[in-house]
């Protein structure tokens, strides 16, 4: 669980003229590639019940440890004879919602803090930013582990923990963007025309925050999936028999010597998923950032 994607994303600069993402994608094949990958993952998650050849939690102990490419089991079976391919497909249904709820928690809480802090400044800013500093100073993974231990290990609590860990990223990003925007002429002009703070925030600030925030959301989704896998790997995520990738690696690692695919298959699934989100965020940022455009 690294804080790095966040640091990378804050480089994204604001542009006063908004760029429509679809428009932008046209000139950037990497964005299209990454976008399609992410879309594919969502389709898999959505269609898992229809495209899975087997029930992902049906135990068939006599059929355990079949190697990949066995008849009717494309990726083989696990220690309880469950179909690995089906479990991996269903795993997307676990990971993607977790990622999005966690990111939403971080985005909403962090966004509100950042907006208030940046727009109103003063005491608000001073106090809220100390809170964010404290949250940042708290080692993120240890914080997440402690939160899950406190609330009880399951997916909902893993989402909450990861969301809390993501708050400072959004708070700082939004605050920095708002501070920049506030100095721009059009905002000052609107304000002098007597617009209320609410309408300035809703009409002028938030729309201008969208692009960099979307980049960050994409990167944090990758981070959240990694974080969830890490928590599950430590036994603090999904409950059995939920087909969760991190959990599958945790159990699979036990069988590494004889049946390595039990850990390698879900490991690859996590890596591909996180890669897709990171690639999307990364390519969007490049596309939005004029300095880095090639």
């Amino acid at each position, binding site marked *: 669980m690294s804080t790095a994607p966040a640091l*990378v994303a804050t480089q994204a600069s604001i542009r006063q003229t908004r760029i429509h993402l679809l428009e932008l994608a046209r000139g950037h094949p990497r964005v299209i590639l990454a976008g399609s990958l992410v879309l594919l993952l969502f389709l898999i998650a959505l269609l898992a019940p229809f495209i899975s050849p087997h029930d992902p939690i049906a135990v068939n102990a006599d059929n355990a440890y079949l190697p990949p490419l066995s008849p009717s089991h494309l990726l083989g079976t696990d220690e309880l004879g469950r179909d690995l391919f089906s479990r991996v497909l269903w795993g997307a249904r676990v990971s993607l919602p977790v990622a999005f709820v966690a990111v939403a928690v971080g985005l909403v809480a962090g966004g509100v803090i950042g907006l208030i802090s940046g727009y109103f400044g003063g005491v608000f800013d001073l106090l809220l930013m100390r809170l964010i500093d*404290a949250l940042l100073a708290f080692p993120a993974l240890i914080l997440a582990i402690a939160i899950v231990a406190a609330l009880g290990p399951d997916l909902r609590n893993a989402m909450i923990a990861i969301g809390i860990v993501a708050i400072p990223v959004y708070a700082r990003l939004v605050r920095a963007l708002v501070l920049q925007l506030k100095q721009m002429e059009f905002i000052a002009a609107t304000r002098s025309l007597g617009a209320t703070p609410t309408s300035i925030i809703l009409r002028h600030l938030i729309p201008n925050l969208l692009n960099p925030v979307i980049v960050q959301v994409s990167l944090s989704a990758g981070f959240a999936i990694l974080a969830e896998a890490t928590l599950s790997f430590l036994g603090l995520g999904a409950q059995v028999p939920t087909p969760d990738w991190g959990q599958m690696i945790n159990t699979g690692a036990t069988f590494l010597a004889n049946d390595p695919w039990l850990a390698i298959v879900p490991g690859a699934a996590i890596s591909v998923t996180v890669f897709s989100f990171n690639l999307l965020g990364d390519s969007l940022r490049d596309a939005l950032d004029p300095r880095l455009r090639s």
Partner: protein
Amino acid sequence: MTTYVLRRLVLMVPVAFLVTIGVFMLIHLTPGDPALILLGEDRSPQAIAAIHQQLGLDKPLYVQYLIWLGHIVHGDLGRSITTHQPVTTAIGERLPATLELGAVALIWSLLVAIPLGTIAAVRRGSLADHLATGLAVGGVSIPNFFIGIVLIFFLSVTLRLFPFGGYVPFNQDPFENLRHVILPAIALGTAGAAINMRFTRSSMIEVLNQDYIRTARAKGAPWRRVVFIHALKNALIPVVTIVGLQIGGIIEGAVVTETVFTWPGVGRLAVESIFNRDYTVVQGIVLLAAFSYLIANLLVDLVYGWLDPRISFT
């Protein structure tokens, strides 16, 4: 400059205070009882009560907090609930292993990042650039515990090139020490390598577009010399920043890697202590991690200003 540093230090006080409250409440409100963990199969109501009394867990929570706060203000982190060692000793015993792992991981990450990042920037848009950028995204996408498991499986269990986990202190056997640190350092440093490479690349691109580089080129300075002497030096400034922050976050970063490789570091101690409800040790480690994060941030800002005269401290 002095006022700036003072101001930053003063601002750290409320942050540290919030961290003490946060960690104390979080770990104490977590269900689970250290007495049950300590007693294991020897539990009895009398023994549990005796331990609660001994550890002061029978007092109201705010009293326990104030007692602890009073002690840490005097530099006393208390004793570990599980081993009775002073918390400073418990952490101190583990710190060298974590620092070594972090240092080797950092060296590995820079050895990969700086050359690849520079090449990618200089040959922007080339196949090499695309490959390097792809690798960078890949590097932060693979869970480090998974890298660890795969390395163990191939290099340690199957090929037996490296020992499986464990740690040998450097002063005991330098060669064995290095053999043990390599795999966990690779697992830990790969994400860092990817991030540092991205930073090197983007920073290098920016520097190469600067006027003075163009001028140097226009004057006919050899391209290699321009890149490696003039540009790289300046391009590494933001890399220093991110590396500084990585050093500040060493304890946290190592948590999972230390667990996978049974590396006796502070990160693993943190996880074990959370699981064993060793309140005092968890609190001590979080304080240490928070402190090193805050100091690293301050130092990074200072170094940044020193390297880049355009920034002034006010």
